[in-house]
């Protein structure tokens, strides 16, 4: 097949020189050959079993299988459907080949064979279609393994498989049928469908067309609803996948089954204080479902928005609020994650939906004698909870409740009456019978005694929602007067003044305790400032009330230049000051527009005043608003949702996890986009107003030409007096203007002198800062290099020492060698002279000589003996020959005469020789 050759190239590259691999290769190849060409069915099955086990365990076998095995097994699946055992084995082998091996060795290898195999298998639509057709088989394991193969493929190449399955007629229908199969298959199918429907709108719709909703809800019901196990969780994952951003499917659910099945999942049955982890996950997933139905996306398309509005209406009609209140407010045993999610859902349900807002306002919780408005209970959560997350979510409810709901705001504000003195210091537990407003005021002020202003800040946040854009409520709140407490003896003081006091207290507390006086301090000042800013918007009475106490202005001006305050706090203080100018209708000198403007320009200077705005706007809270404004992405996989829960439960770690700007994370959620926009528009207006103030000074003295004329009947003296007083007035005004002019000039001058660093302001400072940091880094690097250098020098000298030592050693060694050589040559010479000097010197030479002589003697003796023997034989020969000669008549003596003379040798031998010669 075509793809095999392509694949081999990759294999070659990855495993070029691995010898072990080639063993596995050939082993797998042999097995495949047996499967492919074997004749005995039993043998082929055996081979398949072997192949499966080796592929399941061995990494290179897995790889080798991918290169060669797929066509073989696919042909088994295609052509041998009748042999269930072979089909089963082939599928099981495929599953193994797609399962990643958790091997230590894996880390070194870049390409995971299971992924490559998945890639190969999913490349052909025909393969997928073949697999889908196997789902119709009767054998349980065939269907089971097939689903596993498909799920493995989906996890590896999601979009390709989604496309393939879409292209196969009835593909999704087959998969959906598996939901009605027996339990094991059904659970596998659930997982598979969850993957399949991920971010694939068309598949989501087809799945729904095939009756997914009915099936999912049936399964969940069978499994025990939210009390069920992980299968319910899988169902909810699938449900959320097919509803997410899918208006069509949401409509279908609403129009056919309705939302009842979803709502009933939120219903707590039986013992509601046992929340297992699984149940928590199930409930959070269901709350996510609700959230998917009601959350309008970031890009609010009109059609989508009407859809989500309808969803909100229907959900509330189906009594979802009751269940949400139960989970989020009433059930003390619910985990904080569930409570937070439920509260957030309530907030979303009432957002921009007047009917639902009213519905919530009318909700009452508790048993008959002890009933309480749901809103009061939610307020109590805000005041009491130890979880910041819970506070944020409960606050979100109030924010959405008050937005565009003046009647609701009025309703809440109408109860703003302080409790009688006796109740003022009552513990929070006694607040059940308090009205909403009293409870809120109580919360605002109760923390004063114990020095913890966190509760106050939270209450301030709620109050700011109540006052926002509502003149009536603002007026009402201005009139609220608090009784004298221990600290502030004397006359009752307005609520607003108390808030400013707390603002000041929170700063003094911070500076007293040092930096880390607690997690709450980081947002207390911002919260109170936010309240004041919202309060003063478009409300001259509030401005007047604020300015009634002269120290307030001074305090704000100090805050402006307080270096220990955060950028945000200073910026907000600047906004508040600006509001005092912008909405000022006072006429009293010092409190009027000019008084404030003068104070600002004298104390702080206009340039540095406006700089505070710039700095704040650059802060991440304002600049990156769009990112943080969205709710965090919803989780899909089980693992992720688990991690999520842990995250949210761990509030402490969250609050400690401050970001670079050292802003409290809570601020991100409390400074919602509405407030950011408000600050932005306020800033523009404030700038405009300042310019206005300076360009059009209001004349205290109206110059009416007619008045300068002498009136009829006026005496000279009167006329002069009148003119004189007029001139005096004008003179003083000119004085005023001159002094203002002087301060402006001074400011200008200051700006001028500082222009080099300051004109373009913070951006340059930021640059300077970065330069400084760079310089610091560079000097650090330099220091490091120096150190290194010194170390190197050290090393060098050490090595030098070492070298000289070595040298001297070498020298002594060479000396030693020289002397050795000399000795050697001497010895050599000696040896030579000895050799030339001969043997004399050897003492045993005599002995040797003796020995040699003896030996020679012995030898000659032996020779002599031999000769003697020979002689004897010759003698006898001579005798016999003599006798013969005598017989023959010869005269022996005569014959022998010559012999003796010739030879000169003694005796008998000569005779013999002669005789021999004679005989020849």
């Amino acid at each position, binding site marked *: 097949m075509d793809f095999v050759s392509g694949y081999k190239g990759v294999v070659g590259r990855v495993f070029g020189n691995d010898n072990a691999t080639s063993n596995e290769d050939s082993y797998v190849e042999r097995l495949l050959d047996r499967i492919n060409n074997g004749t005995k069915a039993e043998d082929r099955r055996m081979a398949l079993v072997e192949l499966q086990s080796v592929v399941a365990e061995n990494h290179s076998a897995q790889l080798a299988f991918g290169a060669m095995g797929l066509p073989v097994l696919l042909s088994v699946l295609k052509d041998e459907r009748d042999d269930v055992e072979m089909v089963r084995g082939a599928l099981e082998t495929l599953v193994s080949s797609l399962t990643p091996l958790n091997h230590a060795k894996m880390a070194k290898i870049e390409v995971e064979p299971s992924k490559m195999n998945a890639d190969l298998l999913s490349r052909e639509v025909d393969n997928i279609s073949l697999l889908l057709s196997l789902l119709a088989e009767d054998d349980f394991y065939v269907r089971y393994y097939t689903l596993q193969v498909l799920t493995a493929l989906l996890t590896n190449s999601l979009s390709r498989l989604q496309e393939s399955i879409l*292209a196969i007629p009835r593909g999704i229908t087959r998969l959906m049928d598996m939901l009605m199969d027996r339990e094991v298959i059904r659970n596998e199918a659930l997982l598979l469908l969850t993957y399949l429907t991920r971010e694939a709108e068309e598949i989501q*719709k*087809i799945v729904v*067309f095939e009756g997914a909703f009915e099936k999912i809800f049936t399964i969940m019901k069978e499994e025990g609803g939210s009390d069920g196990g992980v299968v319910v969780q899988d169902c909810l994952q699938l449900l959320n996948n097919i509803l997410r951003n899918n208006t069509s499917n949401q*409509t279908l659910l609403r129009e*056919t089954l309705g939302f009842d099945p979803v709502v009933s999942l939120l219903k707590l049955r039986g013992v509601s204080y046992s929340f297992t982890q699984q149940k928590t996950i199930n409930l959070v997933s269901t709350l996510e479902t609700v959230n998917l139905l009601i959350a309008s996306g970031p890009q609010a398309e009109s059609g989508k928005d009407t859809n989500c509005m309808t969803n909100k209406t229907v959900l509330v009609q189906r009594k979802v609020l009751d269940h949400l209140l139960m989970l989020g407010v009433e059930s003390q045993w619910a985990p904080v994650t569930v409570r937070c999610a439920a509260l957030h859902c309530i907030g979303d349900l009432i957002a921009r939906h007047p009917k639902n807002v009213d519905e919530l306002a009318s909700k009452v919780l508790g048993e008959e004698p002890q009933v309480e408005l749901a809103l009061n209970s939610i307020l109590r959560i805000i005041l009491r909870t130890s979880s910041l997350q819970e506070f944020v979510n409960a606050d979100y409810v109030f924010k959405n409740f008050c937005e565009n709901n003046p009647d609701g705001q009025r309703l809440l504000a109408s109860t703003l009456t302080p409790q009688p003195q006796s109740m003022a210091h009552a513990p929070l537990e006694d607040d059940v019978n308090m009205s909403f407003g009293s409870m809120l005021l109580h919360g605002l002020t109760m923390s004063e005694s114990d020095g913890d202003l966190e509760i106050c800040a939270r209450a301030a946040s709620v109050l700011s929602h109540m006052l926002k854009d509502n003149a009536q409520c603002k007026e009402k709140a201005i009139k609220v007067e608090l009784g004298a407490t221990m600290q502030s003896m004397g006359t009752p003081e307005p609520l607003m003044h108390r808030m400013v006091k707390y603002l000041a207290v929170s700063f003094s507390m911070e500076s007293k305790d040092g930096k880390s006086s607690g997690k709450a301090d980081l947002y207390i000042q911002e919260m109170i400032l936010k309240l004041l800013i919202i309060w003063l918007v478009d409300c001259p009475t509030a401005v007047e009330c604020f300015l009634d106490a002269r120290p307030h202005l001074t305090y704000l001006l100090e805050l402006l230049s307080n270096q220990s305050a955060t950028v945000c706090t200073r910026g907000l203080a600047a906004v508040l000051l600006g509001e005092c100018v912008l909405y000022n209708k006072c006429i009293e000198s010092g409190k009027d527009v000019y008084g404030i403007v003068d104070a600002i320009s004298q104390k702080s200077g206009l340039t540095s005043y406006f700089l505070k705005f710039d700095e704040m706007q650059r802060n991440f809270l304002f600049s990156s608003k769009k990112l943080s404004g969205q709710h965090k992405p919803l989780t899909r996989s089980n693992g992720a949702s688990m991690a999520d829960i842990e995250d949210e439960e761990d509030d402490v770690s969250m609050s400690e996890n401050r970001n670079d700007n050292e802003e409290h994370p809570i601020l991100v959620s409390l400074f919602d986009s509405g407030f950011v926009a408000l600050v932005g528009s306020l800033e523009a207006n404030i700038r405009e107003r300042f310019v206005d103030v300076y360009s059009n000074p209001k004349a205290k003295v109206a110059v009416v030409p007619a008045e300068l004329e002498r009136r009829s009947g006026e005496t000279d003296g009167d006329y002069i007096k009148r003119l004189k007083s007029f001139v005096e007035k004008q003179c003083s005004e000119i004085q005023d203007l001159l002094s203002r002019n002087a301060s402006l000039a001074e400011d200008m001058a200051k700006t001028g002198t500082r222009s080099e660093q300051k004109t373009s302001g913070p951006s340059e400072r930021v640059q300077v800062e970065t330069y400084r940091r760079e310089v610091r880094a560079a000097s650090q690097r330099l220091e490091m290099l120096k150190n290194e250098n010194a170390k190197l020098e050290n090393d060098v000298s050490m090595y030098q020492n070492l070298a000289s030592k070595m040298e001297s050693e070498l020298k002594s060694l060479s000396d030693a060698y020289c002397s050795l050589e000399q000795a050697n040559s001497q010895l050599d010479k000696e040896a030579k002279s000895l050799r030339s000097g001969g043997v004399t010197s050897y003492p045993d030479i005599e002995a040797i000589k003796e020995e040699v002589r003896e030996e020679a003697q012995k030898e000659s003796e032996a020779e002599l003996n031999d000769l003697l023997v020979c002689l004897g034989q010759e003698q006898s020969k001579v005798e016999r020959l003599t006798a013969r000669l005598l017989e023959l008549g010869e005269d022996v003596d005569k014959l022998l005469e010559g012999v003796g003379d010739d030879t000169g040798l003694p005796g008998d031998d000569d005779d013999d020789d002669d005789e021999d010669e004679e005989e020849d």
Partner: protein
Amino acid sequence: MSYAYLFKYIIIGDTGVGKSCLLLQFTDKRFQPVHDLTIGVEFGARMITIDNKPIKLQIWDTAGQESFRSITRSYYRGAAGALLVYDITRRETFNHLASWLEDARQHANANMTIMLIGNKCDLAHRRAVSTEEGEQFAKEHGLIFMECSAKTAQNVEEAFIKTAATIYKKIQDGVFDVSNESYGIKVGYGGIQGNATGRDASTSQSGACCG
């Protein structure tokens, strides 16, 4: 939400013949002169009454463009009824009917009820396909036929209801095995015995699941 039967419909036909407008007119009783091109498939639902029985219609409006054919085919098999729509002012949409029908016959179940609809009959002055031709085609292929206008709502109700009535009759005649949901028909709670008892049955049912 109780119903005696639930029928699944699909609406098919060339792009621009007014499928989505027909659905919108039927479900929301309004007409949208400029409609976005349908991507894939859109859903709509409405309750109707036939023979005094409440019947829920689930309608899938498909994209007419060729590129979506493979997706829309997934909906054929599970549908009880199909509205095959052409535009009486555009001849080519009528000419393509045969290929749509072939598609339907190939992918749908054999008992699917098909209603042929000549849409835009309010534009009589631009008519390019005569009523007789439509009737003739329907007769030849065993379809129900109707001309209607999504703009004026003329015959729109009738088209959907007549299709439902045909399916209902087939059920009465025992053509379908209604327990098998793959025909696009689902039996609701107690609707078969008649309306009043049907409601009783459904309330007792919901009472049971609350308790």
